[in-house]
């Protein structure tokens, strides 16, 4: 079979199928109620009526999520690297990590509000904490599972510990962290929603709660879709950066097609 170049991409096709099903269910056959699942037109109306504070809400949520994500990523990486670099650091920090890590970050939200008040800071802190946990552990594990031969070769060529970390450990672990970074990015949106549910008076999550109080399903869905877009964009950005940083890896993708 000859593949034509300009066939509809599968993801677009999936999207179209969903849209058609949605229109059929809500506008043609009307099998669901407005409160359960509003139609695309209802959503457009909701979007229009929310237009005034939507932009500022978006910016507020973006600020919380992105600063939390970036802080968490940086601190997590540093923690993971330091734990591998220095046994003294590991012996001091490791035990604390061990029994604080299993605490679900979401469960800390009410406490954070009591401790830090209602500002934007506890929300950022919360997102950062969640991201840091994921990245820190993954960084440390990736280093611990490195092939010893690279470290030995580097050491044998005259590199000291600092040089080994800079030129061997860090480049080696980057591809092994991409999965964790993408999971952390996705999680940080979730953390932002949860944090805003309980904390701030701005942001998309807060607006969602307001919509929910009025049983305004279209309004909720609009915000869900906005979160969705943000999450996809961030994921695409990370994937693009990953491609640039890992040109050296064997990019042959594992496939089991044709294996009996």
């Amino acid at each position, binding site marked *: 079979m000859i593949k034509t170049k300009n066939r509809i991409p599968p993801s677009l096709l999936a999207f179209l199928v969903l849209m058609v099903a949605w229109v059929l269910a809500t506008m043609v056959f009307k099998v669901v109620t407005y409160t359960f699942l509003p139609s695309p037109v209802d959503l457009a109306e909701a979007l229009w009526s929310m237009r005034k504070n939507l932009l500022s809400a978006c910016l507020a949520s973006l600020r919380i999520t992105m600063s939390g994500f970036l802080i968490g990523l940086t601190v997590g990486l540093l923690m993971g690297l330091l734990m591998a670099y220095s046994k003294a650091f590991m012996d001091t920090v490791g035990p604390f990590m061990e029994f604080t890590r299993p605490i679900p970050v979401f469960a800390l939200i009410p406490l954070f509000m009591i401790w830090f008040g209602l500002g934007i800071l506890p929300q950022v802190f919360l997102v950062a904490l969640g991201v840091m946990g994921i990245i820190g552990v993954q960084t440390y594990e990736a280093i611990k599972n490195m092939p010893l031969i*690279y470290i030995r*070769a580097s050491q*044998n060529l005259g590199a000291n510990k600092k040089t080994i970390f800079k030129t061997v450990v860090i480049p080696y672990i980057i591809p092994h962290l991409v999965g964790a970074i993408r999971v952390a990015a996705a999680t940080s949106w979730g953390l932002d929603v949860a944090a805003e549910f309980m904390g701030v008076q701005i942001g998309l999550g807060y607006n969602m709660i307001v919509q929910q109080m009025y049983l305004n399903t279209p309004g909720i869905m609009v915000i869900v879709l906005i979160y969705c877009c943000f999450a996809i964009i961030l994921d695409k950005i990370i994937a693009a950066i990953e491609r640039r940083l890992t040109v050296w890896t064997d990019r042959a993708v594992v496939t089991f097609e044709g294996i009996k």
Partner: protein
Amino acid sequence: MIEIKDLCFSYQNRKKAKERKEIVHNLNLTVKDNEFLCLLGPSGCGKSTILKIIAGFEKAEKGVILDNGEEINDVSYERAMVFQEDAVFPWMRVYQNVEYGLKARGIEKAERDEIANHFISLVGLSGVENQYPKELSGGMKKRVDLARVLSNNPRIMLMDEPFGALDAMTKEKLQEQLLQIWEKTKKTIIFVTHDIEEAIFLGDRVAIMQPISFGGELHVYDIPFERPRSLAIKENPQFQKMRRQMIDELKEYESF
């Protein structure tokens, strides 16, 4: 001079801490300065392990190894290992790999460039300097590793089957180049190989290592051919006779 005195070594069983697998037992060997020593032995008898101990990656369990009279207790670029496994850094281009040791030791860019380019062309890799290792064949990667170690101008080279992955032509070319470098720079080389001809062609002496079940001793042959040697000596009857002897000895250990 490297002096191995009553060396014992065993690997610890990871699951049962008390159980140890003895690899080297009371091994004695002296390698003189500027000597080229080849080490033969059946697979798994502990050749790589000995190199790793000399390099300083593993600690002797009993006995000592002296390098110029001093006990080896650290890794040093002066005792350079060419690993049996692929050790080229896949995240660096060929050129960066080759200059790695020079850079790590703080050598100036101009000098680094000169040395790195010299060895890249010596091992026949000119033209692929800017490629990543994933784009190279197995034999090419091995040559990157070789150039990387040679650039560092180590005093002692511990070479673990460096030419094992190469085709016959490249292998002979590199053997001759290695001899030239060795004669010029006066290094001490311990060279592990499974290729008996290679061992006799290169070595001042060839040591055959018994598996520990046969006693774990070294049987050392002196190689009488004078230097500089040409590939023609491989046709020499005496060369062939020594080769025969070594094959017979190695066959005895095969059953282990």
